[in-house]
């Protein structure tokens, strides 16, 4: 045995510490497709239970949409299962180019490059475009994949205070000696459901000659009147230089991501971006499914509008019940309970009553900001929202956490 006992005991102890600190993450086995009603076995071996799901990124309900399923099956039939190649060797099909063109149209950008995931897109975009002569100005609450991408890049870095435009402006002023400046932000911050102020960010980018990159993973498909994203919402389409986003949330939720931007950026990424050069091309089934998702969104606003109605309804009613939420328009609805233990107990009670939500506490969110993050979907029906609201009311009263 190569691995010594010391190593084994070390890692076993790490696990025990996580469990003792209530930070151990458990997985629940779902026996059904992703949809508002799930069949779950938890803990393993327990009887199978039906749950209403309020914790998926299935914003538009496309993860199990019959049209998307049909298109995916067609893709499998016509273009096979896997490509067993990176893009530039023998992993580019006609449908990969078609998807890139459709995404560019949808997002209003010049060109698009596909990645295995948005995680990889963020992992590969910075290093390929920036060097040690440059600086990255990044919102302190940006997603982990952006942080990792920046860690892999030699550019200087400043973290500006979350959504603090004055702090950002100061950073911009102080970095005028650098060759290029890149402002990096999430379009929507996943823990709070807040939108970045792209209206101000684009103005600052122009004023200080900076490149602006937005990760719109929690926005593409449903934020903005046509669902194009936070740039549409803020009326600044055409003024954002780079958008990274995912197909793993609203756009069907299977896998894959992309970077959209000016053609010259995308051309450079194709030559140099390491996750693009060294990781597999997207599987045909996912390309075909994502193409259909975009086609559906191009045809009608119905899903997006229903999502926004559902969201407005849930936000209004949960506040009326007496919960404190972070105000906003986004289908991410953070219900603030502050205390980690209360969050865990209430989410467990809700689970027992058939409502599947997840609590978030430190270190994912600040210590006194523990919360239950509810995510609304266009696939939810009104009676499902009502059932969740009713149970939130009953359990909230039991725990004495709602305003009277």
């Amino acid at each position: 045995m190569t691995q010594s006992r010391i190593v084994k005991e070390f890692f076993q102890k790490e696990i025990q510490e996580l469990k003792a600190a209530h930070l151990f993450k458990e997985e629940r086995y779902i026996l059904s497709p992703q949809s508002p009603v799930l069949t779950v076995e938890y803990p393993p071996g327990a009887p199978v239970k039906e749950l209403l799901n309020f914790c998926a990124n299935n914003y538009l309900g496309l993860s199990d949409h019959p049209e998307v399923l049909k298109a995916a099956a067609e893709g499998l039939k016509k273009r096979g299962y896997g490509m067993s190649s990176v893009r530039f060797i023998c992993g580019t099909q006609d449908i990969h180019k078609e998807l890139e063109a459709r995404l560019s149209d949808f997002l209003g950008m010049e060109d698009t490059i596909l990645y295995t995931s948005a995680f990889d897109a963020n992992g590969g975009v910075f290093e390929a475009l920036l060097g040690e002569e440059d600086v990255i100005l990044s919102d302190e609450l940006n997603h982990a994949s952006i942080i990792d991408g920046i860690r892999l890049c030699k550019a200087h870095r400043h973290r500006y205070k979350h959504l603090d435009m004055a702090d950002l402006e100061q950073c911009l002023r102080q970095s005028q000696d650098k060759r290029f400046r890149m402002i990096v932000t999430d379009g929507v911050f996943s823990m709070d459901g807040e939108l970045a102020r792209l209206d101000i960010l684009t103005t600052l980018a122009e004023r200080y000659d900076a490149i602006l990159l937005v990760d719109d993973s929690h926005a593409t498909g449903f934020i903005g009147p046509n669902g194009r994203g936070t740039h549409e919402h803020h009326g600044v389409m055409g003024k954002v230089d780079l958008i990274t986003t995912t197909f793993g949330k609203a756009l069907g939720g299977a896998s894959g991501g992309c970077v959209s931007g000016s053609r010259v950026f995308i051309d450079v990424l194709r030559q140099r971006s390491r996750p693009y050069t060294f990781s597999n091309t997207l599987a045909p089934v996912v390309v075909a499914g994502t193409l259909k998702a975009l086609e559906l969104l191009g045809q009608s606003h119905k899903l997006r509008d229903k999502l926004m109605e559902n969201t407005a309804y849930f936000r209004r009613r949960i506040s009326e019940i007496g919960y404190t939420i972070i105000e906003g328009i986004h289908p991410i609805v953070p219900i603030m309970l502050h205390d980690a233990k209360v969050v865990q107990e209430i989410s467990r009670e809700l689970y027992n009553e058939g409502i599947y939500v997840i609590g978030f506490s430190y270190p994912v969110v600040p210590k006194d900001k523990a919360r239950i993050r509810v995510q609304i979907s266009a696939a939810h029906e009104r009676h499902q929202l009502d059932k969740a609201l009713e149970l939130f009311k009953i359990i909230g009263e039991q725990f004495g956490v709602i305003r009277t």
Partner: protein
Amino acid sequence: MAYSEKAKGFYQNELTTIRQGGLFKEERYIESPQAANITVEFPKGAAQKQVINLCANNYLGLSSHPDVVKAAHAGLDSRGYGLSSVRFICGTQDIHDELERKISEFLGMEDTILFPSCMEANAGMFEVMLDKNDAMIADRLVHASIVDGMRLCKAQLFNYKHSNMAHLEEKLQETQQCRFRLIITDGVFSMDGDIVKLDEICDLADKYDAMVMVDDSHATGFIGKRGRGTHEHCGVMGRVDVITTTLGKALGGATGGCLSSRKEIVDLCRQRARPYLFSNSLPPPVVAASIRVIELISKTTDRRDKLERNTKYFRERMIKAGLDIKEGESPIVPVMLYNAKLAQDVARDLFQEGIYVVGFFFPVVPAGAARIRTQISADHEIEHLDKAIAAFTKIGAKYNILGKKKDEVIAMYGL
């Protein structure tokens, strides 16, 4: 527009430099499933052409195997298209657990954790296992994704010369004061096709109390008598601590990767590996098809045996035809041309002959070591291989390189 002319000019200039250096990578549009015969449009707008594909990682011919496609369809039907979630929120289905167990059994490891890609498995694991008190001792030629994973980890980095066991031992002696040491290697090195000396590495690991990590992406499914990988080939199953591998090559080739290891290391990766916590769960059709693949290759070694026969046949006849082949036994068969332009010219002419191969040159391989990397598949029939060998012979004669040694080719074409 925030994107200034200055930036635009800079990036345009970079692209021009890449083109002028003959290093620009072009993509060819394939209009069929991945297989021995594919339909290609290249350059864009040209008439479609049927070619024999000799450059896919489709080692076992499972990328469009009817049973695999059928299983993917069944997965779509029973478990849906996407999960729109990471694993620990609401992205774990029963089939994810089943696939992890099947892979553990196949590789002979305690436990397995899936990732969206092997790139992400390699990017995430080092940071979980090691910190600044530890040492990473890596072969100089390990894959880019391992390099990136090591860049994200605070442990001290040591490199040893490619497959040089004496140099590895030196590094192990130098790092005795570190808390943990991890020896890091590819199982099969993708550019040369050579197999790691895993038996010797495991002996050294025992002697110096180090752990061993192998990326078996170019081995899982076909290297070793039962296709378990380089640890089987080298007779050290059970002695390797961490195996990372991909579902994106021999195992159907769609997407996804995994890490197989000791239980506690897998457990900790589930808690802490950033690409696992922050990237999507594998989609159901891919999980379902991968389960089927593991079943197929556990049941019979037919495809793996055919691949071995094909490889032997191709290697022998290419050498006989006078081409300069890197010796070895893996289905990665590099045809050495040394000069970057020559490699690209030969690849282009072969495409005209109906053989799809790609030239590799600096910085993917060292300068002066340009080559065409051919990859053999169990999907190839003898007539595919004969056609390819005939085309290589014809084009080799055109450039007068048949039977020529390295020095003679370099004398004719330069480095």
